[in-house]
């Protein structure tokens, strides 16, 4: 096996600083939005006592599960021994950490009392999946950093496999944990199902990979030496993405079927699929079309599937679709009235959106959106600085150097 | 005025005078010694603005150390950043009214204190565990680590275990700054903390702690890379030319 050479990202300094400046500006705006929200209180957001989690949570959950998915590439290489993915493993680890940090930051800054973060770290309720998630998240970071270390430091190489297996299990636990945040909400129709956890795992694969491919293409393209990214390699990655996207669609179908099956949930399904107003639109146009069918169509298309710009567009679509899916899952299901009195119609419930009757209103406001985007900015900033100061990117992914089929045969040397 | 307050008042005046004299002496020495040749380590910035940026990155991020050794960097940085936060938090004992920024940062100083101790522990571990570093370590290197560690631990104990009368401490130091001696609480931890701090102030200009000002004078870092554009010549070298 040839040794893979990693080199720091050698982007033109002017471009690099330009990129950093843009990201910093995005983060600055996001930070200012968060500060504003904290200063005056959450009344400036669209959130209320019925829809308690809003746009920041869409971004946060999206980033967190993408983080887990981004690590998938590394797992494929070191756990399942697909050597073709090995050169990608480091970037995959870095992205995982970066996305997680971005996501958590959004989550933390949206707290009612972010100043009490230390409370959250010193007081635990071990019956709360949320508390476990704090461990899962910080642990994930530690595990991935250890994993990266075993990859980068030769004395650690021998542990790569075992740490990789561990990281993969941890990652699955993390996505399951994130999914379970919703899964544990027995009171809410939309979440009360076991299918949510595996669906989240698949979503994480898809979104993480989409982000990964975009970052990889951008980084390689912007390198001063224009690092080669082989067509076959790219094709392999995009095919994998299509597979994951198909998996997400499959689970979406199963999800709704199981819901319809349990007759009491029929109302929810028909609401999301038909009567939910813009949640319905988000579901069909965002989740299914843009996030599922379009990208699959592009990737499997004999011509478009080979064009780089189209592959990038497909990745972009998966990401947009992912955000839409999160919006439907997180907000749609809060907006849907809670069934407290079966067999009764709720005529009044004290305050609007209260105990039932009408769907709860929620209109995102600018600060929330900016905060969410700020989190994305943080993730990208960490990635950009990471690949620049440390050796994350392989020198070349040209097809003649990295045999994309290296799994099938044992390598010669 | 109790004996204790008097003793500590004297100690601190003494330590501060020694610190200032020693440090000024060193800085003058550094400033006086010319740098006769352009020796920035390249690739180096080509304008003084960019040199300032380079120095900033060195001072704030320890950029070169990062390139050199990640472990040392991580512990060194944790320690120094912690120390920095602690220093900011400590400003509350010396300013009245306390500047709003300090009030804001003050609570983070506690984490700074913890970080500082963790960083020191890591640095010390490396002195013991890595053969190369063990080889270059002399007793004084251990002692300085010990000193800082004890300062940190005694401070943290005051924060988390046996509280002291902060208001009185502050009155004592504000008093010193106005040349009057106010009573100092006689809590043992506080007295230990302050004693060690005085020792630190005294040894600062005579030990490797000079690295802090030293960095700013390091020609391989602070010079502009423009020898072809601008003639650079030291006074003593110019005299050679006259001969």
């Amino acid at each position, binding site marked *: 096996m040839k040794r893979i050479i990693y080199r720091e990202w050698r982007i033109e300094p002017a471009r690099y600083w330009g990129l950093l400046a843009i990201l910093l500006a995005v983060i600055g705006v996001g930070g200012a939005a968060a500060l504003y929200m904290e200063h005056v209180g959450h*009344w400036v957001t669209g959130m209320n*006592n019925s829809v308690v989690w809003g746009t920041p949570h869409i971004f946060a959950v999206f980033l967190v599960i993408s983080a887990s998915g981004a690590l998938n590439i590394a797992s494929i290489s070191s756990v399942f021994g697909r050597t073709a993915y090995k050169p990608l493993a480091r970037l995959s680890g870095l992205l995982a950490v970066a996305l997680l940090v971005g996501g958590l930051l959004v989550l933390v800054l949206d*707290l*009612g*009392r972010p100043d009490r973060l230390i409370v959250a770290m010193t007081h635990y309720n071990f019956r709360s999946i*949320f508390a476990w998630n704090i461990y899962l998240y910080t642990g994930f970071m530690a595990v991935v950093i250890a994993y990266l270390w075993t990859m980068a430091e030769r004395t650690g190489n021998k542990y790569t496999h075992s740490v990789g297996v561990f990281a993969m299990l941890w990652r699955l636990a993390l996505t399951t944990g994130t999914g379970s945040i919703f899964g544990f*909400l*027995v009171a809410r129709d939309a979440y009360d199902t076991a299918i949510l956890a595996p669906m989240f795992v698949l979503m994480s694969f898809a979104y993480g990979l989409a982000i990964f491919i975009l970052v990889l293409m951008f980084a390689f393209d912007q390198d001063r030496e224009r690092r080669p990214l082989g067509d076959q390699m790219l094709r392999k990655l995009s095919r994998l993405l299509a597979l994951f996207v198909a998996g997400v669609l499959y689970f979406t179908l199963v999800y709704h079927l199981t819901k319809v099956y349990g007759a009491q949930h029929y109302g929810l399904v028909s609401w999301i699929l038909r009567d939910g107003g813009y949640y319905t639109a988000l579901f069909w146009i965002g989740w299914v079309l843009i996030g599922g069918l379009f990208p699959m169509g592009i990737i499997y298309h004999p011509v478009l599937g080979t064009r780089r710009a189209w592959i990038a567009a497909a990745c972009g679509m998966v990401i947009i679709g992912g955000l839409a899916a999160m919006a439907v899952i997180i907000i749609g299901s809060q907006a849907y009235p809670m069934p407290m009195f079966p067999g009764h119609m*709720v005529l009044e419930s004290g305050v609007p959106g209260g105990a039932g009757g009408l769907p709860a209103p929620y209109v995102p406001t600018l600060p929330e959106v900016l905060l969410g985007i700020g989190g994305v900015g943080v993730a990208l900033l960490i990635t950009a600085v990471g690949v620049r100061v440390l050796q994350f990117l392989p020198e070349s992914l040209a097809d003649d150097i990295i045999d994309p089929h290296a799994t099938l045969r044992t390598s010669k040397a | 005025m109790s004996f204790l307050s008097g003793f500590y008042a004297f100690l601190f005046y003494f330590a501060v005078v020694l610190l200032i004299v020693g440090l000024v002496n060193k800085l003058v020495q550094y400033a006086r010694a010319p740098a006769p040749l352009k020796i920035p380590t390249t690739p180096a910035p080509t304008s003084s603005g960019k040199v300032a940026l380079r120095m900033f990155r060195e001072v704030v991020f320890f950029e070169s150390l990062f390139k050199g050794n990640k472990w040392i960097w991580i512990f060194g940085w944790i320690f120094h950043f912690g120390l920095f936060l602690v220093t900011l938090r400590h400003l509350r004992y010396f300013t009245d009214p306390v500047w709003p920024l300090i009030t804001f940062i003050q609570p983070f100083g506690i984490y700074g204190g913890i970080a500082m101790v963790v960083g020191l522990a890591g640095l010390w571990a490396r002195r013991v565990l890595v053969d190369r570093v063990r080889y270059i370590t002399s007793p004084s290197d251990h002692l300085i680590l010990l000193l800082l560690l004890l300062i940190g631990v005694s401070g943290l104990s005051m924060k988390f275990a046996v509280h002291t009368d902060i208001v009185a401490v502050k009155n004592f130091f504000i008093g010193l700054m106005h040349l009057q001696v106010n009573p100092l609480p006689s809590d043992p931890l506080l007295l230990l903390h302050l004693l060690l701090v005085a020792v630190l102030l005294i040894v600062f200009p005579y030990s490797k702690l000079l690295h802090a000002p030293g960095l700013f004078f390091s020609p391989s870092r602070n010079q502009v890379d423009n020898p072809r554009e601008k003639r650079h010549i030291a006074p003593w070298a110019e005299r050679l030319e006259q001969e």
Partner: protein
Amino acid sequence: MNDPHEKIDQQRRRFIGTAAGVTTAVVAPGVFLHRVATAQSEDGQGSSQGATSEHRWGMLIDTAKCAEGCDACVTACNRENGLDLQTKPEGQSEAKWLDQRSAWIRKVKLQDEVSGRITNLPLLCQHCEHPPCVDVCPTGASFKRADGIVLVDRHTCIGCRYCMMACPYKARSFIHSEVEHKLTVAPRGKGCVESCTLCVHRLDRGEFSTACAEACAQDGHGAIVFGDLKDPDSALNQALRAQPNRQIREDLELNTGVRYAGI
């Protein structure tokens, strides 16, 4: 329908254990101050006994007695707990503010889909025995006192709103903006979650009533009976025995402390 008391008794032991655990976990850090816990105040006001598991406080709400158009209980709670002192932030729309302001008890009006019968009832925190809000709270800020009252310790609440997601009754409110006016008995501030405390300050002071029940009775409806579920002779238990009653969302098996008759 099962007799609720039996169930409560069955689970009693388990629940003492948990409550004690939570309390020690929170209290432990102040080790050297332990004596404080037992210290008595000289003025002798209120109980220094604290909450014990000898009681479990609860309510029975007789929807048949709850009058259409009446909101005495809501008004009373608002006054008792300073909720009426909340002010709408400048620039906020009225509708949004209604959705964002804190409300601990609400009037709900239902119509039976088959018979068309109208039912009125007040909806408040049900003080579940197995409260989902407590289960999910990451910091343990949501907790259940030894006497069954579910509270938010707003000193450790980080404002994550997970409990609000979890509560099947939408009983909780998040404080969306700065609170300028408040009562000594009901501290309140931006960024935390709160809900009905079962007028815990009254109980701790030795007054066995809640503002809502009191107001309802005063208005002559008497729809709310407050009392100790563990005292077989309490008015509450007598009422429970006298009337068929149920929990809202019985399917979740939360064993609520607030029961309803007539739905």
